[in-house]
């Protein structure tokens, strides 16, 4: 159930935006780190103490080959093993929608780290809504490439859904960036209906209130 199949060139943007939210020398845990692209970047460019969890063994092995500190594990079950406040930032890129219990995963991330950075595809994007409206079928877009019965994305949400969940868990949005259909990044004001239509994917940085 690795989300790596969804990682195309577009995601490079999302990783870059995440990296920009991370201060120099931070202690970072990347949950669902894939082949370690973000971790390598953080270690090399940001002097971060960067570690990862990845569910696919091939991804883990690729990371360790690169010298990264990565263990095989599952976001849904293995975050409990990490001590509280052990990290400055816990990252979950393009993985939230594939977890079984997104609320628990989010809560765990902000137990382990002072901040959480989460990126996910926006199911409220206008094209998704349009396709559902016109075709009457589960939308498949550039970002959502799987058919409904084979998708690993079992918990898709809109920006609005995510913001409401984050608030209900007692987290505040420090920063939010949307990646629009043309690939351009724009800051998002939480609660913006327009952003919820226009952003194809979004990156949120959360803090415990």
């Amino acid at each position, binding site marked *: 159930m690795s989300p790596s199949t969804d990682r195309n060139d577009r995601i490079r943007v999302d990783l870059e935006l995440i990296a920009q939210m991370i201060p120099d020398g931070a202690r970072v845990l990347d949950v669902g780190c894939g082949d370690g692209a973000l971790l390598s970047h953080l270690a090399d460019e940001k002097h971060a103490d960067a*570690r990862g969890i990845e569910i696919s*063994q091939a991804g883990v092995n690729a*990371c*360790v*080959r690169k010298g990264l*500190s*990565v*263990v*095989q594990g599952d976001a849904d079950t293995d975050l409990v*093993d990490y001590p509280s406040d052990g990290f400055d930032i816990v990252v979950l890129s393009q993985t939230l929608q594939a977890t079984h219990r997104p609320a628990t995963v989010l809560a765990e991330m902000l137990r382990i780290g002072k901040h959480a950075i989460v990126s996910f595809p926006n199911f409220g994007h206008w094209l998704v809504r349009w396709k559902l409206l016109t075709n009457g079928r589960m939308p498949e877009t550039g970002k959502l490439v799987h058919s409904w019965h084979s998708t690993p994305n079992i918990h898709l949400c809109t920006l609005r859904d995510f913001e409401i969940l984050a608030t209900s868990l007692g987290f505040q949005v420090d920063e939010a960036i949307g990646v629009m259909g043309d690939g351009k990044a724009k800051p998002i004001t939480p609660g913006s209906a327009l952003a919820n239509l226009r952003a194809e994917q979004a990156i949120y940085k959360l803090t415990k209130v």
Partner: protein
Amino acid sequence: MTFPDDQPLVLDSGQTLAPLTLAFETYGSLNADKSNAIVICHALTLDQHVASNNPLTGKPGWWNSMVGPGNIIDTDRFFVICVNVVGGCGGSTGPASINPATGKPWGTDFPVITIHDMVRAQVMLIDHLGIDQLFAVIGGSMGGMQVLAWAVDYPTRVHAAIPIATSYYHSAQNIAFHEVGRQAVMADPDWRGGDYYDAGLDGGPRKGLAVARMAAHITYLSEAALTRKFGRSLQDREKVTYGFDADFQVESYLRHQGITFVDRFDANAYLYITRAMDYFDLAADHNGHLASAFEGVQTRFCVISFTSDWLYSTAEARTIVKALNAAGGNVSFVEIESDKGHDAFLLDEPEMIATLNGFLDARARDCGLPTSAATPNIGVDG
């Protein structure tokens, strides 16, 4: 080397061992600031000849393909030390050594040793060589237990630890298999309570030790590997003989393993070393909490397991990884797909080689040591 009587090895049992002799091999050379030393810890029936011919068997070193100039554990860059464990029979003090109190071999009067004792002896050697911190400690199976003990007992003296195909404790099943082996040795009348050294090279409990080795050897292989290698194939015959000859190839193979083993291993040493492994339990040493064992650990870990290893399974490796995470430790963990069972760590598994290379290079960069980029002939992709 032999330490003077006033430098005894203090054992977990409370006893002391003096004079202590340690047989070891080194490869490569120690750099000026003594920061490039790697200790390789050997498994139960292996020895210090990790990358040099074993003088007893004439066979090449047991990790010859891993350790050497230009190899993954590159002796052009690293100073590699491999010490025969105390209690063993490769030249370090063991039950076949002379007990200074009697002038005769120790036999079963030899004190029971532990994995921690083996490591403590290695520390004496490292101290003697003037090495403050090891760049890395690496080992598989019982060697992996020593790696864990190194990092837990001497956390400031190990920069990187690579425990491979190992566990943090011996399970009931592990102990059970060892007990079968020990009982096989002790049931052999030629064992004579451990006092058999005057019987010559062909004396001693050869049959018992061979049976012990046969039983143990099964645990080193996977069912898939045994099936692939032998299946139900018959040995040099068309059909079964309705007798107890080695009809099946697997029987013949195991008998061969047993017979060749006794020529190179002392039965009492086998008893002592298997006992040391049975006593190993890092969690119990820390009130049942494995994470407490790793509290404050600065050592960088790379834990490696193999999918078909049922002796020390991935589940046990994962427990080590979880405990390290809980203690805030820095750990990489790779499970390698292999159907070759526990002994996969001794074979040239490409994924293991790539993992070791990536991890060692990253740690070499931490320490300002040369990396494998300076050694272009390493056959690793990526």
